[in-house]
């Protein structure tokens, strides 16, 4: 298998970046060890579950996941070494990069459409640029909001910022990929809140959003049309999206369609795990195919089935440490831009954890959002490592050691 382009590209950059560092900082001081330990445990734990979930299914390759981790480590090292403060002025660039990334699957040759979503590009390997855009969107949001110095109480400015923040969301909806779009929105909302936007404005925005959603449903009723095979199709919210929403709303109703089947099997997998689970590699729900998409969207079910409630609590504890230590770094960061970067990353992780686990246990509607550091898929794995690298950069460049660079 030829080495993916992305691989060679990043390695070259990595080499260049290290060479340019004339005085490398002492390793032990640039690393925030509690976070590092939590991350090592989390990645190891995730790989274990991913191995268990992919072991029985020839469609997935565990080696690919390991490659993703390896690439992620390289990207993380690069980000760590790079002084994030150099990016604070470049929010327009970040926005442009985000938009280019999100729209790239629409390009004629490399764009790939799979199950109705134009979300992938093929550059030797299939990657999901929308995932990478999460990083640039975090940088963009942090960059824009840091200009207001912690007070965003002018309505005009607020509306302008909101308008800019909606651009990536609108772009991702052209694929369409509502799940990733919601992640973008949540990143924006988190950074907005942490940047000191007036609470009244944010509540107002929320109200507008709710009214907007209702409006979409109402408008859809007027726009709906009947397709060739006699089913009704809507323009704005597609049938499958509605189905997911409605399944979530009556999850206990015995229904035979695919969406409720997925949810029912997911809940059976989790519930049947009990306190200690069925043991690693002994899941029946995923290994025998009852649970669809087990290694990707529903990997939490594999964990819960094999390791039980104890395994779930351990995972959530690791996530708690990851987020807690990140917030600690955000809290002690000496500038708003760095703080907002970390808050944006925390927002991203928090939403992904809530949505992914929430959908598995029937608290949230079903969307294809992966679980950080655990789900199969190298794009998102690299994104997570890049995020870690950014946090590391914020930590090291704010510390006494970092100041010297």
């Amino acid at each position, binding site marked *: 298998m030829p080495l993916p382009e992305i691989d060679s590209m990043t390695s070259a950059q990595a080499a260049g970046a290290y060479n340019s560092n004339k005085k490398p900082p002492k390793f032990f001081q640039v690393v925030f060890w509690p976070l590092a330990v939590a991350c090592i445990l989390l990645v190891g734990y995730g790989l274990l579950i991913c191995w268990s979930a992919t072991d029985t299914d020839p469609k997935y390759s565990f080696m690919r996941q390991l490659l993703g981790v390896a690439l992620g480590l390289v990207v993380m090292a690069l980000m760590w070494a790079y002084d994030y403060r150099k990016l604070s002025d470049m929010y327009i660039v970040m926005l442009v990069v985000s938009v280019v990334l999100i729209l790239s699957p629409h390009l004629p040759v490399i764009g790939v459409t799979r199950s109705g979503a134009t979300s992938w590009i093929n550059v030797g390997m299939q990657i999901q640029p929308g995932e990478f855009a999460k990083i640039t969107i975090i940088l963009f949001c942090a960059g824009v909001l840091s200009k207001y110095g912690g007070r965003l109480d002018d309505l005009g400015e607020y509306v302008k910022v909101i308008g800019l923040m909606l651009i990536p969301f609108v772009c991702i909806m052209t694929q369409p990929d509502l799940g990733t779009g919601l992640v973008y929105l949540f990143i924006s909302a988190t950074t907005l809140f*942490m940047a000191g936007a007036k609470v009244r404005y944010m509540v107002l925005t929320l109200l507008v959003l709710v009214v907007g959603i209702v409006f979409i449903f109402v408008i859809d009723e007027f726009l709906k049309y009947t397709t060739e095979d006699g089913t009704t199709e809507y323009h704005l919210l597609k049938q499958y999206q509605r189905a997911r929403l409605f399944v979530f709303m009556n999850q*206990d109703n015995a229904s035979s369609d695919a969406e409720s089947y997925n949810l029912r099997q997911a809940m059976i997998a989790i*519930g049947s795990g009990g306190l200690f689970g069925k043991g690693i590699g002994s899941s029946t729900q995923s290994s025998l195919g009852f649970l669809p998409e087990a290694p990707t969207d529903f990997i939490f079910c594999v964990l819960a089935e094999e390791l039980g409630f104890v395994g779930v609590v351990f995972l959530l504890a690791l996530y*708690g440490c990851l987020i807690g230590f990140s917030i600690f770094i955000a809290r002690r*960061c*000496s500038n708003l831009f760095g703080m907002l970067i970390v808050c944006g990353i925390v927002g991203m992780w928090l939403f992904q954890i809530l949505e992914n686990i929430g959908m598995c*246990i029937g608290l949230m509607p079903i969307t294809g959002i992966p679980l950080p550091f655990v789900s199969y898929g190298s794009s998102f794995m690299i994104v997570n490592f890049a995020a870690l690298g950014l946090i590391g950069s914020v930590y090291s460049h704010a510390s006494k050691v970092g100041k010297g660079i």
Partner: protein
Amino acid sequence: MVTAIIATILTIAIIAAVALLVYMLVRRRSQGEFIKKSDVEHINTLNIGNDKSLRRRGPQGAHSHIRVNASEANMAKPSDKMSSRFGVFGIAISAVFGVLVAKAWSMQLLESERYASASENNLYTSMSIPASRGRIFDRNGVPLVKNRFIQTVLADSEVADDKRTVKRLSTVLGVPESVIAQRIKDESAGAQSKRTVASDVRLRDVAYISEHSDAFPGVSIEEIAEREYPYGALAAHALGYTRAATEEDVEEANDGRSIELTDVIGKSGLEYYYDDVLAGDKGTRRMMVDASGNIVCIVDEISSTQGSDIITTIDAHAQFVTDELLAQTVAPFGDIGTGKGVSACVVALDVTDGSVVVMSSYPTFDPSSLDDSNIWELYMKDESHAPFVNRAINGQYAPASTFKAFTSMAGLNYGYATYGSTWTCTGEWDGFGSGDVQRCWDNYGHGTLDLHDGIVNSCDVVFYEIAKAFFDHGPDGSGELSQTALQEYLSKFRFGETTGIDLAGEYSGLIPTPEWKAKQWRNVPSEAIWRGGDYSNMIIGQGDVLVTPLQLACAYGAIATGDIMRPHLLKEIHNSVGDVVFEAQPEVVASLDVDEDHLAYVRRALHDMIPAHEDLASHFVEYNLDAAAKSGTAEHTDKKDDAWFAAYAPFDDPKYVAVCIVEQGGGGSDIAGPIVAKVLGTLLGEQVEPGAGLGYINGSSGNSIAIEFTGNTRRQD
């Protein structure tokens, strides 16, 4: 469901409320603290937050300030201003984790059992293991129906549309694609059931298909116990045949017997009547399956119990001789019409216990050929003369002169004939003076003769006179007798009712009564009247009288022994380990309530009948038989006569009774007599080694050549 939604909404509401409350509290406190902060810091933050000129310059301007800020006031972190928001953020994070843990706790600890059983339901499935059917043997232990285990390739009906799979099957099995597609489309085994693509498949091909099951969607392989008939159509009507159960069979299954669509069940004959005995008990196999229903492993298995074996009363040797003889008689060159008659039937009973030793009916079928749908089509045509009909119990014929043995006793009983009575036969008779002359079969007349000779020569005129006596003493004459006096006497021999043999669907025949006639002809009042002619027809076994060969055999058995026995085909049942669990006992349905002297008189006449006919006698001499017999030739206006013959032997110590009819065969003594002689001769002759000399009996061809009919030839009884 509603509670789940309410709970979710409540949780979110509570979290939001707590978050808001905390935010309010924290903000109030931090505002208080704010004023106490050092001046420098106060000014700095004010600069950033409130300097309108800076803000008007936009974000770029503000940015430069941050830089200065960051480097000058190192210890003043931007998050200090945001501590309340960090608090809210922290609470939101805790809430998210709290909700997730709480829900996982409720699912994995509180409701774990419910989900675990749902998971098991997904995982385990049980399948019943079919039990192999019991075998069927003749009275000496010769196997007549056995089992053979074959590998069968089955396919769902949808596979017919899957061109690739059909092509692959064709390549592996070496059968043309069109044939495979046709077999899959064949609905003869039921629209829902799996279709047999190929049976008796080589193990190598079975292994190939099993190993590449992904390439053969909808195709499965099963080991099927197939019925094997070592002697083909031998006793086919008595044994019956099996088929895959239909949906109706599943619905109508008896209590305690569960039939599934894949089961093979008895459809006729003993296979049907003793289906419960032969079926055995199914086993169950519990298996782990994956989401596509593929078996992952077998968890446990309760093996099935083979059905019990049935030992029949049939004598395979005599049955074989008879089956072959009938085929030779009716269709010596394969098709019906190349010999005598269009169909034939022989029933032979052991008069001492009622066991059926021979039950043969032609045309017949080979039960092993029935998987071929062409056979069904062929046998459903009129010209095949209904090979599936068991004529011994479902063939109803006018008994003709064989009936005279019983009607003569009725005459003796009422005194209309005595040992000394004589009648004169001129060949024709019009005793009722109706102008409608009835003829004796011997148109030249028998001269003067008594009842004994009347039976021996089968003189119709003698019996017309007796019939006239019944009529004259009936309501239309002197009124001593009812209109049904003759019928009531005949019912002592149990005509007009089923014999109770252990086969399903037996017919009861018919003894006409005035009541029956009125009902039958209710739309033609002129015909509905009970006339003298009805007596004279009935008394010679013609007109509306109908009997089955089995009824006649039982009645002749009663003449031989004085007892009506219940005929039966079951001798013993042996369970799967070989123990005898049931043994049939002779059952006397009724003892004949007739005068012993009259019975002896008729027996004597029947005994004298054979030597009186030279050609016939030679056949009985050939087998060294001392028999009592009566022939019969049933006349039809539009087709050839039916040949009847009934006999029992030995005369002094009766053992077997045999009855034969050759439909449209001609004269009874000529055609049916020699057959009965050979059957009785075989039964009473030298005993052969069980199973020796048996051969394969073929099913009939299904074709026939029309028999020439050139008007009523002179009848010869």
